[in-house]
């Protein structure tokens, strides 16, 4: 009797317990289960440890002041080892399943709702176009006002400074080291740079190229008959195409196939004929190099006899017009 009672009680408890604890379903997986690959895991661990070693080596090399190559090598090595470990993980250690999915579809109802909200929000407005214009005027003007201080960046309307050069009649020519250039020292087939005495070398108008040609070979434009004493010609060194410094002088001893002598810019190979007042013979330049008239003073030094024949440096709209007085 007692035994039966106990058994019933136990069964009841058991049953209740079973009923109370819900049936434990095997949970549905989101990510598919994959096969372990202990060997790949071991290799990945090895790669990561090597990466750690390379990174430590980088710090040690850095502290010891080792070369750029040692630093770059160790850092790149550490990163490459990590990359290898990650790629191994991608290939062998993570579940990499191709899953189907759907492209997002446009939602016409939402689009309509959006349009409706905007449309219906204007029900109290009667002069929509005028309001829009006024708002546009306010916004545009305010924008312009906020941008206006940018005009302080540079001379906005006055472009006369583009014409300035440091050359004046009587200013002496000096070389890179600051010594006056003597007419007697200027040889043929040699390319000289010259600068204005007592002025900055940096202005675009400052640097000159100086070459000496046989005076009989000169075909300068009309009015420049006395600009080249003894065949010594001075031109602005700055290319009229894109502002680089003329750095090549092609003389007859150079390339026999191409006309010489010629002054050439190394940036885009605009080529100028010094004998004809640096007229353009090839390349993209649209204007000759401006010529500087020269004279020789009593001491034999070269001096400017005036200013350039035209505006110096790269062109802008209006560059050919007369510089402002």
């Amino acid at each position: 009797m007692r035994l039966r009672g106990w058994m019933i009680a136990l069964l009841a408890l058991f049953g209740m317990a079973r009923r109370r604890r819900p049936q434990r379903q095997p949970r549905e997986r989101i990510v598919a289960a994959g096969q372990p690959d202990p060997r790949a895991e071991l290799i990945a661990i090895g790669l990561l440890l090597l990466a750690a070693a390379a990174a430590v080596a980088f710090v040690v090399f850095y502290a010891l002041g080792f070369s750029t190559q040692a630093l770059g090598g160790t850092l790149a090595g550490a990163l490459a080892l990590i990359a290898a470990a990650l790629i191994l993980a991608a290939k062998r250690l993570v579940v990499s399943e191709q899953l189907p999915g759907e492209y997002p579809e446009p939602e016409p109802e939402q689009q309509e709702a959006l349009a409706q909200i905007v449309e219906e929000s204007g029900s109290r407005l009667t002069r929509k176009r005028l309001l829009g214009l006024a708002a546009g005027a306010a916004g545009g003007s305010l924008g312009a006002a906020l941008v206006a201080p940018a005009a302080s960046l540079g001379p906005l309307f006055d472009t006369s400074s583009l014409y300035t050069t440091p050359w004046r009649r009587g200013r002496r020519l000096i070389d890179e080291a600051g010594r006056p250039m003597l007419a007697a020292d200027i040889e043929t087939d040699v390319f000289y740079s010259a600068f204005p005495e007592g002025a900055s070398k940096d202005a675009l108008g400052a640097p000159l190229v100086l070459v000496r040609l046989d005076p009989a070979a000169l075909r300068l434009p009309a009015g420049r008959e006395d600009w080249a004493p003894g065949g010594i010609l001075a031109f602005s060194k700055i290319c009229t195409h894109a502002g680089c410094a003329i750095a090549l002088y092609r003389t007859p001893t150079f390339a026999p196939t191409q006309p010489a002598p010629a002054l050439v810019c190394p940036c885009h190979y605009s080529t100028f004929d010094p004998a004809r007042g640096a007229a353009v013979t090839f390349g993209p330049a649209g204007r000759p190099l401006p010529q500087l008239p020269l004279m020789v003073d009593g001491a034999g030094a070269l001096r400017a006899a005036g200013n350039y024949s035209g505006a110096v440096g790269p062109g802008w709209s209006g560059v050919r017009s007369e510089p402002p007085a």
Partner: protein
Amino acid sequence: MIRGRDPLREPVRFIDERTGAAPLLVKALRYLFPDHWSFLLGEVALYAFVVLVATGIYLALFFEPSLADTVYTGPYAPLQGVPMSEAYRSAVDLSLSVDAGLLMRQTHHWAADVFVAAVVLHLLRIFFTGAYRRPRELTYLIGLAMLFTALLEGYLGYSLVDDLLSGMGLAIGYSVALSLPLIGGNLGLLIWGAPFPGDPQFESRMYITHVLLLPALIGVLLAAHLTLVAARHHTQFPREPEQTNRRLIGVPTFPGQTPRSLGLMAAVAALLFGLGGLVQINPIWLWGPYETGLGTNGAQPDWYLGWLIGGLRLMPGFDVTIGDYTLIPNPFWGGVLFPLVVLVVLVAFPWIERRLTGDRGVHNVLDRPRDAPRRTAFGLGFLTWVGMIFVAGSADRATVFFGLDYEAQIKVYRVAVWVLPALVFLVARRICRELQRAEEIERAREAAEAEARLASR
């Protein structure tokens, strides 16, 4: 199981209760990446940009953007006693006197070159597979904006240093600005503050643009680009029959794509630091400081500006003038109009193609290049046009290395840049059509064989 002590679920619950981010994160983790190697080109660009920002911040800690005069007194003997700007002095010191400085500077420079290269390759992939079509036109336009911003950003980067090559590049940039019809002179003076080489403040203007304005712009565009990619999902190649314009097949972000993508990031960083450490680039201490009267022969810009050099060099020498008044100086053609044409063609292409083909549909499935013969032929022709102009920019090198006559080369290029693209267009279109036809024949043969097998059974 002890509730509340789970190291995974506890932080997840913490974050979700406070942000409500769980649904979004689940979606992000299960975002599908269709599988193709060419889809990684954009990621390469992204990771190169990460390296650019990281190394750039390091450089900014040492670089002094000032044109104030100083004299070099550091350990590099050839420059000792040479007057130069603080900008150039600090860049040389950063390279030769700061531990790991040269590694960072060279890695930064290499990363810029690789970044633009990856963007261009990514663009080619997008173009030749038709990935720019509806509904991804905005993603494409933002990408183009990033590419052209990156070109300017790179140009400013090497211009900041104030070495000889910087100065020559800036002189050309100044000339190109001046060449804009009517406003060029005003614009050039506004940007430079004074006639070239400009006001000393110009260095500060370049600096803030290079380290803040343009990187921030690229960052914003990048965020918009990636947001739009995710919003419309990746395109896919039709490799399985289930891959349609409505259904895609791909690897989820987590776990599948994550180690791949991080592995690629580490590989890109390894490549860039390896190049930065082992392969010299732009050894600025050899160039010396810039003066307007100095130039060097054989100067070449970074590769991504080579097409502009070619454009400037190929133009015959003329300015557009009205009487004595210059209207359009020559650099306008190669320096402004040419890149503008390239940009406009790229920007307008999706709409031009839509107009010509009448195809206004949604395209989530990519074309193979042969599937669109006219697009492929036009793209290759256009690429040949830009590429030939790029190659023409190195004609002086061919003169130095192979003894070819420079002027003759330019005359050949002036014709070839028009003829060759036309030829490439015709040949490419023919090849695409032949490939299509071969596939048709192959399909017909397979169908016939299958029929024959059925009949013989």
